[in-house]
């Protein structure tokens, strides 16, 4: 896990496209907030592997969002229940309920629907925020950290050696 964290920091600090890291975070949000063994997560996995997004960012994000999900499951349940029972959409849900693919997706479960909707709505805002954050981080925070005495001291220490060793595995692979 430590190595993955270092890889994430390396990606953040490297010349890798901020969008590749942001997209990985956004995908990890969907996979982490929604029940993991859902059909849509197979698509997320395919996209994560097919698109050149940062895998370390995806794994770290998955850990973070999965932990958060446990706390906000009741909110997902309420959102899902509301959406699935709202009168105007009943026709839509009934027609897709009769589709095998959607039944396999278990869309009619309140938590699946609530968490998926929640993460899809936040997908683009998170992508934009993450992009801005990475750019700001690189231009301001990174430069400032490098100048601090702690960072200079650490660069001479064991952890920095590990970080260096990790840097040989490539950034946004």
């Amino acid at each position: 896990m430590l190595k993955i964290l270092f890889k994430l920091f390396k990606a953040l600090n490297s010349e890798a496209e901020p969008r590749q890291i942001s997209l990985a975070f956004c995908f990890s949000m969907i996979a982490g907030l929604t029940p993991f063994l859902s059909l849509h997560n197979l698509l997320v996995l395919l996209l994560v592997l097919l698109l050149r997004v940062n895998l370390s960012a995806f794994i770290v994000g998955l850990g973070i969002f999965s932990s958060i999900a446990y706390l906000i499951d009741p909110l997902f349940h309420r959102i899902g229940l509301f959406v699935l029972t709202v009168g105007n959409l009943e026709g839509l849900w009934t027609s897709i309920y009769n589709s095998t693919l959607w039944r396999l997706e278990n869309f009619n479960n309140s938590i699946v629907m609530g968490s998926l909707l929640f993460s899809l709505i936040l997908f683009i805002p998170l992508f934009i925020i993450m992009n801005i954050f990475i750019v700001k981080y690189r231009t301001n925070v990174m430069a400032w950290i490098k100048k601090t005495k702690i960072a200079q001291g650490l660069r001479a220490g064991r952890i920095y050696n590990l970080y260096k060793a990790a840097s040989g595995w490539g950034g946004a692979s």
Partner: protein
Amino acid sequence: MKKWIRWKGLMFFFCFAVLFSLIWFVFAPVFVERMIEKYGTDMVGAKVELDDADLTLSPLGFVLKRLQITNPDEPMTNAVEIADIGFSLDGLNLLRRKVVIDEMNLDQAQINTPREKSGAIRKKPRGISDDLKKRKGKTLSLPSLKIPDVSEILEKENLVSLELIRTLDSDIKAEELKWERILNEIPDKEKLDEHKKRIEKIKSAKKEGVSGILGGVSEAAEIKKDIDSDLKQIQDAHREFGTSLASLKKRMGEAKKAPLEDIRRLKAKYSISPAGLGNLSRLILGPKIGEWTDSALFWYEKIKPALNRAEKDKKTGHETVKPVRGRGINIVYKEKSPLPDFLIRDINASVKLKAGDIGGKIRNITTDQDILGIPLTFIFSGDNLKGVQSAEMKGSLDHIVPIKSKDTLNMRIKGYQLQEMTLSDQQELPLTLKEGLLNLAINSQLKGEAVKIKTVANFGSVKFATEGERADSLFAQTISSTLSDITGFSLMVDITGTLDNYETDISSDLDRIMKKAVGNLVKKESASLERKLRSAVYAKVNGPSDDLKLNFSHLASINNELVSRLDLGKNALDSFGVKNNSKIFKLPF
């Protein structure tokens, strides 16, 4: 574009998918095996075991090897053991989370096979024996054919009459003491005489002039008040005594009748009742029929929850599930072609019995009959079996509308050769049906909770084996010789009531024959027992009973004393000139 696509990732994804499928292929049978064992064990209350489960891909299905379902009442016996179960699954519906099996084959199903290891689980299941215990109060036993000695009877039996007499005697004594104390407290003869003397004194006062007369008037009023008060005390006590006496008299009457009640009770318990022998078939076959009925109802109750899932889960239209993480609610929408979550359309079964193989078909097994709209039906039949000419069992379980459920089971057995069937193992009259030929017809119906089972059994070429000829009792000898002459009889069993509380009515022409054969003998023996009991019971009761009468007579003297004081009080009042409680005070001049 090239910058954004990672072709190696796609390859990795496919490798992952293949690996996942392989893992599923390897572990799915193990998962299915564990599921069957876990849920089966929970449902039956004893171990359900499966030797092996294999997954087949084309067509998609499973082959299960050696399914053993333990009899919860006999952990070393399998209620059912099936050598091979093969079925194919509807793959498309499986993706929709519906287990639909078009055809299932059960090969070599056997019942009551021995187990190598006990199939009991730690938690004691509710078995058939529990039901039997619950209904034990209803079972009857063959009346004793040996009348015990009267002294033996009285040694082990408590006489209610004796208890009653002793209790009453002690109550009478307590009452006597109580009233002796009260007699001391209420005005006695001496006090009442004193009132008289005071009156006489006033009467003599008129001779002393006007002042004497005026003083006498106020004193006379005083005396009258005292007499009234004393008289009231005596009257109250007399009234209370009268109530106590009446209650004790009533109890005396009961105590007098009590020995007769004891005699009647002991006679009923120890003599052979002609009515009991008149329903011998019930006494002999009742427990066995009860056992079979309980066993059938036990297994029915095990199956019933699965048939009534619809009633249980679908009241709100929502089905609660436990998703991967947390809990959620699955909203159910209208399906275009509704299908149950679990359905086996056809089961072809071959059952291996000692008598030979019988074949059967079960149709439409589902947990959601309300969705399918078709009841479960089954039929099993076999011809030319070993010891049975033909056997057929068919029925249906209709729970389409759960509150109007209707289940039927009809059974026909022709030419069943009976051998060595123990009917009674009571010491006084061991009874075995050595051989015979049985034709049996059972029509049963369960509507909601109401059970109705009608059974007609015709026994032919029967030969009873009894050891009653060697018994000491004349009854046992008579019954034995009567049974040995019987070659055929019929038996009718009607069971009506509810699943928890049903009545069994058994009748047979055997009853008439038995009643005729031993009826007179029974009457004679019963009369003799009654005579002996009467003399023995009265011999025990007479002494305490005489004491009781004596103590009761003591109460009469208390009554006499109260009456005498009451008279004295009234006399004192009369000497005032007050008669018949007229309250007219006549001045003493």
